[in-house]
Structures are given as structure tokens and as C-alpha cells.
């Protein structure tokens, strides 16, 4: 209340006084922009003067904005992981027991040169037995074996382009048709599970994102609506002294944009805090699974985009509220006028 911007305004400016020849059109445009600046400053000042209340609104908006962005980041992170999972859709080719190591090597080279194969590992029968012995815990039992019962094995990782269920099936048929190959195994179940999981996640994310986007618009719309109600008199008087609709609307639109700005900044802070807080356990978990999973964080561009989007949303919310409520306030209802 104490702030008095008018004192500045009333000081005659000698530099301006000199430009007497300025056309009325330029004068008009200049005073238009002066008014924009003034309204922007005033509505920011109004927010500043009630810091707790403004912070409350910002926080509500910040929470509502942070959640969908957090989900987006999580989805991005998971897509990285699911790429890792897909690579576990490996094709295993068991050679005939009669196939020699040289024969197997030649076959391996042939398969590796195929466009659909990303990686190939040859496990010879001796190594296969050693690994089986180690992993099965049947050390003694295997000693009874007179001959190594395991064949040479090829572990084949398909290229990403061939990782669809159909693509993998075609690759399997191709390898099965080769000489010396006894049997080909592939864990198609993984792909199916992955699809189901992605579907579920996408649904959940969509459900939440819709709810929260609605929440953002609602929060701002509601705040602006209530601030319109509490500034009813101002609107009335502005209309009575000949303010156009644009003039009356302006402070509310700026208010909405400033709320958006504050909300965006709060959202960014919340995101950074959550990421920092969660990064410890996530890293530990990823290590346990020997996964390269890590939470994506927001880039500088992303942060800017978030804040600008928040301002636009704020402006939009204000516009909707103003559109709906401003026309209701007509000077006919003036007290005892």
C-alpha cells in the first residue's frame, strides 16, 4: 500500500520534454507500452507484498507441474532400461555334438556377417561345461561323466532393428536352416512381457499426466477467479471510467503469467531436490542388477522450456478465468450509485 510509483511519474523529464515534435501516434504507442510495463510491475509487486500467499500458490502449481515432468523423466529413464532388457532377448544356437570347433567358427563368421546380428559369442563345449559346473553346483556329479555332454554354443544378439517378435522369429528360422546347427532357442516371452509392461506404464503415466495437467489449469484458473472476485471493485471502477475489456483484463493476465513463472521455478526446484534425494538408492539398485539405469535429469533447455510452458499455462488459465468472470461484473450492480 505504501509503494508509490506515482512520485517518479510526476517528475517532469527534461529529456522527454525536448521531443515536442513527436507524433500523437508514437505517443499513443509509447504510453501503451508504458502501461504494459506498469501493469507487469504492479502485478508482480502485488504478489511480492503477500509473500506467504504467493508462495502457497506457487507451491501448489509447482507440485502440479513437477509431477508430470517427473513422470516424463521416469519414462525416459525406463526406456533406457527397457533397451537394455531387449538386448537380453538373445538367440542361443546349440551345434550338433558332432560339429567340430573349426566348423563352428566358420558358421559363427557367416552368421555374424548377417545384417540382423549385432553381436555373437562362441562358447566352446569345454567352457560350456566349466560354466555349467560352476553355476549348477553339481561339481561331483559331473565328474561321473565320461564325455562332455555339452555342444558348442553360439550366443547371438540381434540388431535393434531386428528385435521385434517377427524379426527375431525370421532370424531363428535362418539360423536353424544352417548346417551343423542342432537347435535354436529364443526367449520370446521377454518381448511379450516388455510390451505388457510398457503398455501398463504408458497408461499410468497418461492417467496421471491428464489429471495433473488439469490440476495446473484448475489451480491457476481458481486463483485468478478468486483474485478477480477480490478485485471486483477495481474492475467495476475501471469499466466505469471507460476502460476497455483489454485494459481490464491486462493485470489478471500478467498475474497469471507471474504465477506460472513462480510455479515453474518451484517445479524445477522440486524436481532437482527429488532427483538428488533418489539418486542414491537408484544407483545402488542399478548396481545390484548390473544395469546402466540412471534417472535422467532436466537439461538447461528443458528447465527453460518447463518455466516458459508454466508461464503460458498461467496466462492461459488467467485468460479462461477472466473470460468467464469478467463479463459478470457489470457496473449495473453498483451500490446505490
Amino acid at each position: 500500500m505504501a509503494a508509490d510509483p506515482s512520485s517518479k511519474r510526476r517528475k517532469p523529464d527534461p529529456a522527454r520534454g525536448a521531443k515536442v515534435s513527436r507524433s500523437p501516434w508514437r505517443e499513443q504507442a509509447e504510453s501503451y507500452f508504458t502501461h504494459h510495463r506498469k501493469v507487469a510491475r504492479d502485478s508482480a509487486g502485488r504478489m511480492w507484498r503477500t509473500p506467504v500467499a504467493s508462495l502457497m500458490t506457487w507451491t501448489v502449481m509447482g507440485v502440479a507441474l513437477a509431477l508430470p515432468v517427473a513422470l516424463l523423466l521416469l519414462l525416459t529413464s525406463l526406456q533406457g532400461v527397457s533397451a537394455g532388457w531387449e538386448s537380453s532377448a538373445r538367440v542361443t544356437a546349440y551345434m550338433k555334438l558332432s560339429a567340430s570347433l573349426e566348423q563352428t567358427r566358420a558358421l559363427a563368421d557367416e552368421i555374424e556377417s548377417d545384417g540382423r546380428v549385432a553381436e555373437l559369442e562362441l562358447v566352446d563345449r569345454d567352457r560350456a561345461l566349466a560354466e555349467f559346473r560352476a553355476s549348477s553346483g553339481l561339481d561331483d556329479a559331473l565328474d561321473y561323466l565320461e564325455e562332455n555332454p555339452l555342444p558348442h554354443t553360439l550366443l547371438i544378439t540381434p540388431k535393434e532393428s531386428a528385435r521385434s517378435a517377427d524379426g527375431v522369429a525370421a532370424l531363428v528360422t535362418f539360423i536353424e536352416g544352417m548346417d551343423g546347427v542342432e537347435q535354436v532357442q529364443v526367449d520370446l516371452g521377454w518381448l511379450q512381457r516388455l510390451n505388457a509392461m510398457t503398455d501398463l506404464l504408458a497408461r499410468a503415466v497418461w492417467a496421471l499426466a491428464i489429471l495433473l495437467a488439469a490440476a495446473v489449469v484448475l489451480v491457476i484458473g481458481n486463483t485468478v477467479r478468486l483474485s478477480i472476485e477480490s478485485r471486483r471493485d477495481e474492475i467495476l471502477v475501471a469499466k466505469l471510467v471507460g476502460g476497455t475489456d483489454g485494459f481490464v483484463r491486462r493485470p489478471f493476465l500478467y498475474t497469471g503469467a507471474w504465477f506460472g513463472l513462480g510455479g515453474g521455478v518451484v517445479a524445477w526446484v522440486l524436481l532437482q531436490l527429488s532427483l538428488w534425494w533418489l539418486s542414491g538408492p537408484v544407483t545402488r539398485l542399478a548396481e545390484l542388477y548390473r544395469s546402466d539405469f540412471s534417472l535422467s535429469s532436466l537439461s538447461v533447455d528443458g528447465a527453460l522450456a518447463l518455466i516458459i510452458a508454466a508461464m503460458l499455462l498461467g496466462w492461459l488459465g488467467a485468460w479462461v478465468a477472466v473470460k468467464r468472470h469478467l463479463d459478470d461484473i457489470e457496473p449495473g450492480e453498483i451500490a446505490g450509485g
Partner: protein
Amino acid sequence: MIEFRQVTKRYDSEHTALRQVNFHLDRGELAFLTGHSGAGKSTLLKLVMVMERPSAGEVVVGGQVLNSLPRRQIPYIRRHIGVVFQNHQLLFDRTVFDNVAMPLEVMGASPRDSGRRVRAALDKVGLLSKEKMNPLQLSGGEQQRVGIARAVVNKPPLLLADEPTGNLDPKLSADIMNLFAQFSQVGVTVLIASHDLALINEMGRRTLTLDQGNLITGGTSLHGGVGGR
């Protein structure tokens, strides 16, 4: 400048505030509007301001028939009318200066120009020393004078005042009336609703009297306008 042609205003089925009112005010004329409480004075002024629309008849202001005026044109009409409201209608979230500056701000006047004019208007009502105060800190009479300053700040060609001296002592009332008289001398049309019969008689101007919504003195016959609009 103002012409009412058979104007009737009915708020709802029971309340008829104005009944077939006919009158005509010339440019530069100063007239009083009197009548008992609830006679329809404020209603008449609201019709001129397009704050209400007539139920029947035509209201003509500055040569423009207001009945058919599109909504988006209303602000531009209002910029040419200065109004003193019966209950001041000041804003308590800004200084006295900013309150008085509102009509200029709305028109997009330059800050320099605006500052000069606001101070001139405040000076006329004797409140230049209180320009930085909040209207809440003013007495009732001081608030009323701020309202008067706001009405005259942009030198409108038409001035309406609803009970402008209700909260003023007799000396100040006379001063304000003289201010209005000065305005009318430079071509401003002034219409003042008032109960202060002593003051009205003293001024000796044309007086429109309303009674239960009927204009009983000071009106004109239906087609007998004095002309000179």
C-alpha cells in the same frame, strides 16, 4: 448533449424507477435533479452512463442513441463522461493520486501529462496535500472530494454528479457547486442529483424534479427540444 425521449426504466415487474421521462440538456447547461429518496435520480444518471439500459424510449448522449450502442463501444462513450458516484467508488489498494489518475490511465495519457492534470484536479478540491495517502485514511468528506477530482480530471464534455455534497459541510458544498458552475461556463454540460434544496435554490439554475419516477418539473414536451445539440 443529453436527451431523454419517453424513457421508462422498469427493474422488475414491481419496481418502475422511471416513467416516460422527457427532457433535453444543452451543451454548457447546468441543471439539478431532485426528488424524494427512491424517486429515480440515480437510475436516470445510470442510463446516461449506459450502466443500465432503458426498458422503453431512447437515451441520446452527444448525438448518439445509446440504445443501439454495441457493447464494445461503451468504454469510449464513458471516457467522455465524468461521474461522481453517490458512494464514491474509490479503490483502497492505491493512493489518492492513483485513484484520480485512473480515467487518464484508461485513455493512455502520458505519465507527464497525467501527473500535471491530476495535481490540478486535486488542487481544485483542496486535497493536494493528501495525494500520497490511501483513501481509507481520509474522512468521508475528503473521499467525496477525491471522487469529484476523479470525475473532472480529464475535462469531460459531460459531468454527472450523484449527491456530490452529501458528506460536505455547507461551506465546502458551496465551493464544489461553484466549481461545477465554472465547468459549465467553459461548455461542460453538468447534471447534479441533490437533496440540498437550500443550495439548489441559492444557485437558481434549472431543476428537474422526479416524483415516483415521473418528471414533474423542468422537463420538456415530447418533441419540443430546445435544439442546439
